């Protein structure tokens, strides 16, 4: 794969930020590694000065080896035709970070999703209510420590299939559970 140069326009805007590391990646994407405290300012700078106004995604990666979460903010500029992924790492405990909803409205969805799936709390995010896992009370399932197979083994019982089941169901008048919890009131 061909590796691109760091675009001069990006370097000129970001070079003053201390500790920043800029790496060209595949295609038009540039990776920027920043300190957690500097990220909102960088997103603001990119949006204001270079037109990075489209937030494509916020992705979260769980790194139990270092006890950290990596958050990746992928933004696109319609003017520069360029993608920047800004990477920050935060400690898993307490797993808290700031919301960037005031800079990019779509962050609301991604932060809610990450909160639900990884348990990261975003301070200032407008809505961290459950969305997908509304009746789930277990740990955030996208954590590496959550083992889906072990959960299934512990929660459900393996039962061999018996063809008589179908006959039992038919005898009761079809697939409608008329006695259990799902019975129509």
């Amino acid at each position, binding site marked *: *794969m061909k590796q691109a140069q760091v675009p001069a326009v990006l370097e000129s805007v970001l070079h003053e930020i201390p500790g920043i590391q800029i790496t060209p*990646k*595949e*295609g*038009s*994407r540039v*990776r920027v590694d920043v300190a957690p405290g500097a990220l909102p300012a960088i997103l603001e700078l990119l949006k204001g000065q270079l037109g990075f*106004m*489209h*937030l*494509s*995604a916020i*992705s*979260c*990666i*769980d790194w139990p080896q270092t006890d950290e979460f990596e958050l*990746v903010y*992928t933004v*696109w500029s*319609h003017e520069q*035709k360029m*993608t920047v*992924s800004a990477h920050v790492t935060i400690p898993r405990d307490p797993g808290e970070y700031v919301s960037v909803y005031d800079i*990019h*409205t*779509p962050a*609301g*969805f*991604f932060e809610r*999703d990450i909160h639900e*799936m990884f348990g990261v709390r975003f301070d200032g995010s407008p809505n961290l209510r459950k*969305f*997908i*896992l*509304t009746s789930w009370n277990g740990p955030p*399932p*996208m954590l590496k420590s959550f083992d*889906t197979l072990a959960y299934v083994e512990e929660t459900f019982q393996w039962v061999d299939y018996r063809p008589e089941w179908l006959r039992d169901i038919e005898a009761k008048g079809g697939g409608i559970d008329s006695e259990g919890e799902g019975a129509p009131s």
Partner: protein
Amino acid sequence: MRPQNYRPVAHPPSHEYELYFGPNHPGIEGNYAIRVRLKGDVIQEAIADGGYLHRGFEKIMESRLWIQNVALVPRICVPDPVPMEDSYARSVEALGGLEVPERAQWIRVLMLEVSRICAHLFTFGGNAATIGLYTNMFWGVSMRDLFLDIFEEITGARIYHMYITPGGVRRDLPPGILDKLSAVIDELERRAPEFDDLFFDSTVVMNRAAGCGTMTQEQALSWGVTGPNLRACGLPFDLRRDDPYLVYPELDFDIPTETAGDALARMRVRKAEVQQSIRILRQVIARLPSVKGPIRCPLPNPLAWNVPAGEAYARAESSKGELGFFVVSNGGDKPWRVHVRGPSQMHAVQVLENLLTGARIEDIAQIMFSLDACPPEVDR
């Protein structure tokens, strides 16, 4: 006398009521729900409620080999599965440093554009059905079936093709398929005026879709809207042109736009996009026979393939907008993390909630369909 511990229960004003719209409702796209609070027939507040199609794709992909995930990714979005396969494959290729042979790139473009036409035909039908025009659905699905026949002949499957793999495509095109495809797109063009009569020239559509679910370009940009929904607001943003992939730079096509930003404009953009996809397919059909060579680059043993550590973000312009795969490898034989960014994550949640507020109850289904929101992309 009231007891001392009496506390009046807070009721909403009697002229307001709540309605749970979905998840099994003929006017909703897929298994999805919207909780709406209404005053009369005007929506005061809408809250999207997803999760009915959550199958934990991102989690499962972490426990499957890189190559096994080829079978999983198309299942994320039923109406438009090919961009899923392509984006996943390109993200793995970026990580593994694989160069896709030119012939495979042309075949992928063929698959992507046929998938786009299929998805748009579906959306026309769905959108028409929300305002009482059911014939479009039947015609659209029957036309789409002819394209599914093409898919079946190329890949062996009609919907979930599992055809695009990291490094290229699974097998070469069968003989005579380009002529068959050519005949199907001729048939689509022949029938296009009938679709116009039925839909775009219909008084019902003009009265119901014009001015419905309108957003400005500024709103669309701040809400993260992409794809035809954004182009219906006047911005000609298309990843095939702006952040090109595969052989799109070699193809001649226009980016259709509209300015009204309403349901009608969104459907008009899709109609024009079908015409552009036909234009692209004609170029692919003309070019493919002269592009010789392999259809896949040499791959390591896929059952023991350790993809180099790193991260990649590959995205495609799907029929709905920006579809991205953010994939992280720790150098192992399985992905460490896969994040799927579907365009409907914006369109079906924040955008839908915003557009529904102030709309009327009879327009809920139409607004959702006109956004072409795909719930399985949201739930993953």
